[in-house]
C-alpha cells in the first residue's frame, strides 16, 4: 500500500444523460470534498444510479464533466475510474461465488500477476485485515457467506484495491442494523482520518443523520437540493426527496383478543443444499390477526424456514398445520388454506423475468375461472383484464400489461407480486425481507399492506433482516439462531437490545 495517497475529492458538474427520449439525468451537479462522507438521496428512478454510473465511466454522459481533485478528468470506463482511485460497491454483489474471499480479493487487482504466490498473498492479506476494524471470512467460498459478510467483503475489496473515493450503492440493504452501523462507522472513521472519501446512495434517513457530513438530493432526474446534514432536518430531506407526493399512511394496529391459532409449525427440520442441517426443530404458533417477526443474523435458517413453508425446500421432519388440518405446500392446499407469500428479491423468487406483467400477475389464478375454462383451457383476455385492474389498483408502474416484468424497477416488481398475492382473501402470509432494496414510498406501501392483512385476520410470518421493520410491524418477535428459535416474546415486553443479544447467540 502506498500510504501517502490520501482521500480525493470529486465534483460532477452539470451531468446530463439521455436514454432514447428520456432525460435520466438533467444537468445535475454534485460536490464531494476530500475526506467527507456524502449521502446521495433520491427516490426510485431519481437518477442516483445513473449519476454514479456516469462518474464511474459505465455510461458516457451526454453533457457535463467530472473533476477529480479539481482537475478535469475524462473517465471513459470503470478501469480508468479505478486508476483514478474511484471504486464502487454495487447494490448487487460482484464477487465470484465459487472463489474464496481471499481469492476474490487477489484476483480483483486490475493488473493481476501471472503467477500468484499464495503464501505471500495470504500473509499480505492477514496484514491488511489487521489494519481493518472489521473482518470477513477469507477462507470460505463466497457463496457460503451470508449477505452481510459478502457486503463487508465487497467494501474490503475496495479498500484492498487502495481506492480513495468509494461509491456505495445502498450498501446496508443487506446488513443487519448492527452490521450496518459497524460498517458505516468504520468508513466514517476513515473519512475523518482523511484516508477515503465516501459517496453513499441511500434512502435511510437514520444512516444519513448518523454518518454523513453532506447530502445531495435528486428527484425525477434533476437536482432537488443539497446541504449539510447537521443543518437539514429529516422533514426537509423527505420533502426534497419526494416533493409533494402523498405517502400512504399505515392503518393502526387493531387489537386482536383470544384469536385462534392459524398456522402451527411443529418440530420442523430441513437440510440445506449441501446436506447440513438448516433448521432444527422449529416450533411456532401464529394466531389469526397476528404478525410474528423472525429476527436473526442472515444465514441462521430463516430463508430455509420460508422455503419449507412455501414449498421450495422439502421438510425432513415435523408437521405444518393450518386451522387444525395438515398442510403440505402444494398448489391445491395453498389455494384451499389461502396461503400466500411475499418473498425477498421477487424477480428471483416470485416472478418469471421474461414473462409479461399480466402473466406474472396470473400465477395464482391461471388455473381457475375466468382465466381457465374446464380447468385447462387458458384465455388471455380475462388474464389481461384482471392484470390491468390490479395494475391500476396497486399502482404498478409499467409501460403495458404485456411488457416483460424484468423491465420494471424493483419496487414495481414487488408491487406486481403484492397485487397477485394480496388481492384475494389471505389466511396465512409468509413474508421474507419484502422491502429489500426498495424505495421509501414502496416500503411504506408494502408495510401498510402487510398490516392491512393482519387487521383482516391473516396470520403473518415476517422474516426480516431489518430489525426496525420487525419492531414496527410485529405483535410478537422470535429470534432465530443456528437453525433454532432462540427467543420468543411479545413486542411490548422486549426491546432492541434484548433481541440483538439473542441474535448474536448470547441468549443463554
Amino acid at each position, binding site marked *: 500500500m502506498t500510504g501517502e495517497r490520501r482521500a480525493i475529492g470529486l465534483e460532477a458538474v452539470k451531468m446530463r444523460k439521455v*436514454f*432514447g*427520449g*428520456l*432525460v*435520466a439525468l438533467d444537468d445535475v451537479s454534485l460536490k464531494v470534498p476530500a475526506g467527507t462522507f456524502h449521502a446521495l438521496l*433520491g*427516490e*426510485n*428512478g431519481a*437518477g442516483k*444510479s445513473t449519476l454514479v*454510473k456516469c462518474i464511474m465511466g459505465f*455510461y458516457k454522459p451526454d453533457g457535463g464533466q467530472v473533476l477529480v481533485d479539481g482537475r478535469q478528468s475524462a473517465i471513459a470506463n470503470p478501469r480508468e475510474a479505478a486508476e483514478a482511485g474511484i471504486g464502487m460497491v454495487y447494490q448487487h454483489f460482484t464477487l465470484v461465488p465459487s472463489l474464496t474471499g481471499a481469492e476474490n480479493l487477489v484476483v480483483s487487482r486490475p493488473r493481476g500477476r501471472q503467477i500468484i504466490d499464495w503464501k505471500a498473498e495470504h500473509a499480505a492479506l492477514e496484514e491488511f485485515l489487521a489494519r481493518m476494524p472489521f473482518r470477513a471470512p477469507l477462507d470460505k467460498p463466497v457463496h457460503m457467506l451470508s449477505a452481510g459478510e459478502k457486503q463487508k467483503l465487497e467494501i474490503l475489496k475496495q479498500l484492498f484495491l487502495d481506492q480513495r473515493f468509494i461509491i456505495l450503492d445502498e450498501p446496508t440493504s443487506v446488513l443487519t442494523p448492527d452490521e450496518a452501523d459497524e460498517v458505516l462507522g468504520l468508513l466514517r472513521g476513515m473519512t475523518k482520518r482523511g484516508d477515503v472519501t465516501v459517496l453513499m*446512495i441511500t434512502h435511510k434517513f437514520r444512516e444519513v443523520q448518523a454518518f454523513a457530513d453532506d447530502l445531495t438530493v435528486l428527484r*425525477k*432526474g434533476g437536482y432537488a437540493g443539497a446541504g449539510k446534514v447537521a443543518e437539514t432536518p429529516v422533514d426537509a430531506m423527505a420533502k426534497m426527496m*419526494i416533493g409533494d*407526493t*402523498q405517502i400512504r399512511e399505515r392503518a393502526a394496529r387493531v387489537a386482536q383478543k383470544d384469536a385462534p391459532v392459524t398456522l402451527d409449525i411443529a418440530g420442523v427440520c430441513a437440510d440445506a443444499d449441501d446436506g447440513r442441517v438448516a433448521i432444527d426443530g422449529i416450533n411456532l404458533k401464529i394466531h389469526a390477526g397476528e404478525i410474528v417477526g423472525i429476527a436473526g443474523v442472515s444465514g441462521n435458517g430463516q430463508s430455509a424456514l420460508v422455503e419449507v413453508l*412455501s*414449498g*421450495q425446500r422439502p421438510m425432513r421432519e415435523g408437521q405444518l398445520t393450518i386451522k387444525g388440518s395438515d398442510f403440505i*405446500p*402444494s*398448489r*391445491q392446499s*395453498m*389455494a384451499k388454506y389461502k396461503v400466500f*407469500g411475499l*418473498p425477498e428479491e421477487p424477480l*428471483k*423468487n*416470485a*416472478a*418469471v*423475468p*421474461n*414473462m409479461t406483467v399480466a*402473466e406474472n400477475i*396470473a*400465477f*395464482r389464478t*391461471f*388455473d381457475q375461472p375466468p382465466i*381457465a375454462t374446464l*380447468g*385447462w383451457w*387458458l384465455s388471455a383476455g380475462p388474464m*389481461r383484464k384482471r392484470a390491468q385492474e390490479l395494475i391500476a389498483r396497486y*399502482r404498478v*408502474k409499467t*409501460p*403495458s400489461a*404485456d*411488457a416483460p416484468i424484468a*423491465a420494471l*424497477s424493483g419496487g414495481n416488481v414487488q408491487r406486481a407480486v403484492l397485487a397477485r398475492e394480496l388481492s384475494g382473501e389471505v389466511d396465512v402470509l409468509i413474508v421474507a425481507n419484502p422491502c429489500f432494496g426498495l424505495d421509501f*414510498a414502496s416500503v411504506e*406501501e408494502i408495510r401498510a399492506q402487510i398490516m392491512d392483512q393482519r387487521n383482516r385476520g391473516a396470520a403473518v410470518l415476517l422474516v426480516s433482516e431489518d430489525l426496525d421493520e420487525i419492531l414496527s410491524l410485529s405483535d410478537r418477535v422470535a429470534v432465530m439462531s443456528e437453525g433454532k428459535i432462540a427467543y420468543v416474546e411479545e413486542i411490548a415486553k422486549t426491546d432492541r437490545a434484548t433481541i440483538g443479544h439473542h441474535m448474536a447467540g448470547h441468549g443463554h
Partner: protein
Amino acid sequence: MTDITSPQSASTHGIFDSDWMIRVRRGSEALAIPLAALLVSALLFSIFLLALGKSPAQFFQLVWLGGFGTAFSWSNTLLRAAPVMLTALAVAIPARLGLTMIGGEGALVLGGFTAAAIAIPLIGSGAPLFMHILMFAGALAVGAAWVGLAGALRQFRGVNETISTLLLSYIAIAIMNFFVEGALRDPADPNKPSTKALESAEMIGKLPGIDVHWGLAFAVVACVAVYILMFRTTFGFACKIAGGNARAALAQGLPVGRLVIVATLIAGACAGMAGYFEVAAVHGKANASLATGYGFTGILVAFLARQHPLAIMPVAILFGGIAAAGGIIQRRMGLPDATVLLLQGMTFVVLLASETFYGRLAIFNPKARTERT
C-alpha cells in the same frame, strides 16, 4: 396515477408503447433475427463455395430446383420435412421448461425399431390395422420412455439433460444395431442387416393428391396440437412458469417434477412417432437407415423456429428442401454429400450466435436499456 411519477412514465403514454405495438415489435424481432441469421450463414457458405471454386449462385439455384422447383422435388422435400417436424417438437417441448434436450435421434431410432420389432410376428397375418395400432403405440411409448428417462434423471438426480439425451441417442442406435444385426435380423434379406420387412401392401399409404405418406399429416397435426397444449392451456402456462423460474414455480405450489416428466414424455412420443412412420411408410423395416440424422436436423429446426411449434412447420420444410436437394447438388456440382451437412452446421453456429441480439436491438426494444436507480 397518484403516486410518484418516475421519469420513465413521462414517455409511457405515446402510441409506440401501446400493447399492440409491443406485441408487433416482439413478433417482428422473432422473425427478423432468425431470417438475418439464415442470410448470414448463406453468405458464409457462399464464401466457402467460392474458396472451392464453385458458384454460390448455382448452388442456391440447385437448392431451389431440387427442393422446391417441381412437384417431384416438393414431395421429396415434404417426405423429409415430416420426421423433422416431429423431432423438432421433441426439442421445442422441453425447451419450454428450460431444458435443452437433443435426444430426438435416439427416440426416433428406438421408436422405429420398436415398431419394426412388434411387426415381425404380425407381418402377413391379414390384420394390418391391428398391427399398425400396436406398432404406433409401441413406437410412441418407447420414444416417450427414452426422453422421459432423461427428464427423470434431470429432475431427480440432477443429471445434465443435454449430455444425457445426446449419450442416450448413441445407446439407442447401438441397441437397434445389436438386435438388427443379431436376434432380429431377417436372414432372407440379402442387403444390409434389417428386420423382417412389411409387405408392400401393408405399408402406410400416401396422402390423397400428393406423393407423400400420412406421416406428414400426423406431423402437422402434432405441431398444431403441441402449440395448443403449450400456448393455450393451463398445463403449458405452468410449464412456462417452471421453465422460466423453478423457484417461483415451487412457491406457487406447481408440481415442477411432474411437469418435467410429462413434457419430456410427450417430447419423446413425438420423436417415436417419427420413427414409426419411417418404418411403416418409408423403409418397411428397421436398419441403419433409420439413423440418418433427422433427430439432429430437428434440433436446428427447433432453434431456428424459436421453439415455436407452428414456426417449426415452415422451417422443417425449408430444411427438408435443402436435404432433398443434396442429391442433385452432388451430381451437378461435384460436391460431396456432406456439403449440405456443412451448410446446416454453419447455420446452427450463426443461429446460436444470433441469440445474443434478442432484446438488444433498439428498433425492437425502444426502451429496453433504460436504467433506474
